[in-house]
């Protein structure tokens, strides 16, 4: 089974069967649950905090004690709207619904969620590679408690008994349902990364996969390249990192292609990613699909945020990653999909780059530095005007690229002027006439090699060029700009 990565209009990732040569396309729809960064839970005043003693952040409401009633946290609505608007969703009047099923981490044996009238609908997320992933909905729901499994291996199968902690029960979540527009394991990871950046920028969530405040499930299906219809999908759960996400999608795609190529069908099911084995496994088969018997939650009233509230949310939205990329790309005169632009925004160095460009620095050079030379702590604190002057020195030929990198590193580490640092390191600019003089001296000192250089064939010339550049570099103690020297030699050779 070979994997080919053929960029066709955005990125297309195909799985090619060795046996038949058939190319298959992967289709991924991601469901992401984010814990909202509120002080209290969704329906009660218990603290929304990670990592306490079990069952201390509980009350009659989040324990679902008989007689308890939910009251909606206003900040949840605010953050849900921020998130929705950041994803270009329409905020709609919404209601809450009960999703009924039995499970011990569910205090009421129903989950309060939103079903046919969610708060946010029909948005999208623009990825750095230019793909636009549709967002079907982003709705509010409550989190469950946590089961730990005792006895056996600590995993659910083979456990003797389980222990339940309800600290997390009732924590507010937003579930973001992406349309099946992702086509690539890497793209899926980028989607999650981008979503995380938006969650952090809006303050909606701290979005930490490792702490469970960001949870990703992937719906994966495959289809023959050229087919329009979607194949049967499987939902993959237990993805605890971006790496798992990518690996799981790859594995699952191959598994499904294998099945379909051998004449079998893909069964629609939930599968679990087994990180150590590197494979997905089917969940326990259920005799019947769950019937959740959704109905409107009678203990809550409908939610219809007024236009003023929505307008206030819009006005307060920070500049989001996609807009930041566009902004930087525009200022630097490059594509928004350029790696350097993507990296700059990811590392929160776009403000710095913009300021430097505004101070007159050459955009592409600024971006190159950001991409390659600023992956250090505190880079964002670099003085953009100093940065601009440094880039100017480089563009003017006063500093080579290597020298510029060194100066930059020094300026970052110790502060200080780029000019002063350059001078201190002896990186002073060699002006052109001085350089011409040195070139003449070297030519004069090596007459036979010069004749060879002038008259020899390409191969001989190339070698001798290196010889002369080396001599000039030695004579100038490395201060000459290699490119300038080459240009001078060539001009001398052709011009006499």
């Amino acid at each position, binding site marked *: 089974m070979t994997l080919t990565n053929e960029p066709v209009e955005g990125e297309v990732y195909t799985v090619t069967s060795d046996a038949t040569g058939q190319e298959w396309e992967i289709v991924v729809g991601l469901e992401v649950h984010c814990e909202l960064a509120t002080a209290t839970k969704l329906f009660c005043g218990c603290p929304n905090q990670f990592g306490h003693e079990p069952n201390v952040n509980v009350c*009659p409401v989040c324990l679902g*004690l*008989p*007689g*308890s*009633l939910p009251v909606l946290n206003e900040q949840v609505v605010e953050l849900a709207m921020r998130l929705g608007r950041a994803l270009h969703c329409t905020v709609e009047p919404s209601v809450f619904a009960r999703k009924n099923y039995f499970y*011990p981490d569910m205090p*009421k*044996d129903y989950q309060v969620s939103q079903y046919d009238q969610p708060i946010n609908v029909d948005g999208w997320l623009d990825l750095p590679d230019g793909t636009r992933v549709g967002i079907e909905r982003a709705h509010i729901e409550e989190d469950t408690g946590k089961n730990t499994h005792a006895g056996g291996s600590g995993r659910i199968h083979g456990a003797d008994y389980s222990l339940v902690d309800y600290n997390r029960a009732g924590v507010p979540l937003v579930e973001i349902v992406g349309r099946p527009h992702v086509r690539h394991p890497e793209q899926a990871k980028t989607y999650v990364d981008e979503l995380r950046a938006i969650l952090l920028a809006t303050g909606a969530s701290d979005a930490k996969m490792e702490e469970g405040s960001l949870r990703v499930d992937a719906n994966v299906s495959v289809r023959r390249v050229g087919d329009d219809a979607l194949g049967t999908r499987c939902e993959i759960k237990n993805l605890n990192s971006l790496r798992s996400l990518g690996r799981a999608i790859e594995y699952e795609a191959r598994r499904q292609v294998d099945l379909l190529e051998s004449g079998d069908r893909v069964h629609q099911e939930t599968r679990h990613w087994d990180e150590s084995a590197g494979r997905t496994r089917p969940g326990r088969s259920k005799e019947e699909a769950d019937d959740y*018997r959704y109905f409107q939650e009678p203990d809550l009233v409908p939610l219809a945020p007024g236009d003023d509230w929505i307008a206030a949310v819009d006005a307060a939205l920070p500049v989001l990653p996609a807009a930041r990329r566009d902004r930087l790309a525009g200022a630097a005169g490059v594509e928004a999909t350029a790696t350097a632009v993507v990296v700059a925004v990811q590392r929160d160095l776009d403000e710095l780059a913009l300021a430097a460009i505004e101070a007159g620095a050459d955009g592409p050079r600024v971006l190159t530095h950001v991409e390659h030379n600023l992956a250090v702590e505190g880079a964002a604190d670099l003085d953009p005007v100093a940065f601009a002057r440094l880039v100017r020195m480089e563009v003017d030929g006063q500093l080579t690229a290597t020298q510029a990198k060194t100066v930059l590193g020094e300026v970052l580490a110790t502060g200080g002027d780029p000019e002063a640092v350059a001078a201190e390191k002896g990186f002073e600019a060699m002006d052109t006439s001085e350089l011409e003089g040195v070139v003449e001296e070297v030519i004069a000192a090596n007459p036979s090699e010069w004749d060879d250089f002038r008259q020899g064939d390409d191969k001989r010339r190339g070698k001798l060029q290196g010889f002369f550049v080396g001599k000039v570099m030695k004579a100038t103690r490395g201060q000459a700009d290699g490119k300038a020297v080459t240009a001078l030699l060539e001009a001398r050779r052709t011009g006499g």
Partner: protein
Amino acid sequence: MAELPRTAVAIAAAVRSGEVSAAEVLEAHLAEVDRREDEVHAFNLVTADAARAAAAAVDRRVAAGEDPGPLAGVPLALKDNLCTRGVPTSCSSRILETWCPPYDATVVERVAAAGAVPLGKTNLDEFAMGSSTENSAFGPTRNPRDTGRVPGGSSGGSAAAVAAGFAPVSLGSDTGGSIRQPAALCGVVGAKPTYGLVSRYGLVAFASSLDQIGPFAATVADAALLLEVIAGHDPMDSTSIDVPPPALGAGLDGGVAGLRVGLVSELTGEGIAPDVAARVRQAADALAAAGAEVGEVSVPATAHGLSAYYLIAPAEASSNLARYDGVRYGLRVDGATTAEMNTATRTAGFGAEVKRRIMLGTYALSAGYYDAYYGKALKVRTLVVRDFEAAYERFDLLLAPTSPTTAFRFGDKTDDPLAMYLNDVCTIPSNLAGHPAVSVPFGAGADGLPVGVQLLAPALGEATMFRAAAALEAAAPPLEEAYA
């Protein structure tokens, strides 16, 4: 108890003025409990010690020159589906038999803050599902007027407690008539407020969009007083209306001159026992004699109300009762797996009627059946609301029987759930619409048993409703007067 005041209004006044002590009022009532409770079984639990402590506290406050509140020293019984911290709240079910809530219901807090003296938790149909209190897991309550007969349900214990003189007032809950119907059968006053007027926080839920807590009393004035104390906005209940407690006592004797009262035509004929129907007509005449303009009005959707209710209520109940799974509190019957434990617990812990309604509700919500049953029932609800709106364009209040019959005998309807459900036909429409209604005793039926007459009002129409109820009360033939 001859010298002591008997109504809540009189007791509170006497205790606040120091004329009488809360302690002696309480002892007199506890003595009644001792005398007849074995026979009546109104209570699941009599909390005599706590009551004595509460009474003593009230007396101390009076002695210190403080005002303990509008219910100072008034003994009060609480339906056993109202959460009382540290005191068992069983809902008359095996599944919660020993459960002690770690918190008080809002209404429990409010009556305590008003100086009331709770003296026990009363019996009910299990989880408030029933019309006779025969569905209690702890044995039925008996009608104090005739102990061979049911007190009605589901708040049979609270109704009986007042009828037997154990307490001047009590609290019950009404989802499809569970305050009004037992009030009628026991010959006391029982009121269901506008949905959202009284907080449901701490009321163990049966059907969330229908449940309301309300007062039982021997007099309209007492019922109004108790409702004033418990009503008003509660931030712990999202369905609580944002209004302050209504003033009801002040306008009670305003009379009914000019009030337009409509007799509900669908509830005058078939399906209503002749003696009950006769008393309702007599009540209509009494109101007319007092100056009201009485007419007839059709509320057609009342005919369909029963069906809609018996889809909506069980559907919500099936979800509300899912939490009883043996995990966190209450009964647990062990099993090899959690699912087996859930099933064993619920099978052992719930009685037949509860199981029946859970299954009916689960079915009504099931995939494939939602539109035909639950979905349709919600639309019938709209029709009921519309029909009431139309009726209230021509009338200020409506008049109807509370119960189709007087109290029936034990076992009469337990074999036929549908026959039992028909007891609620007069009361259900108000729950569906979220409107207030009150049952007022109005003489005896052919068998000498109490008949209750029902006044219905539009949302937040309690003041008018109680005013008319007081007028009816004033005109009511005494229970002892034989039906002719």
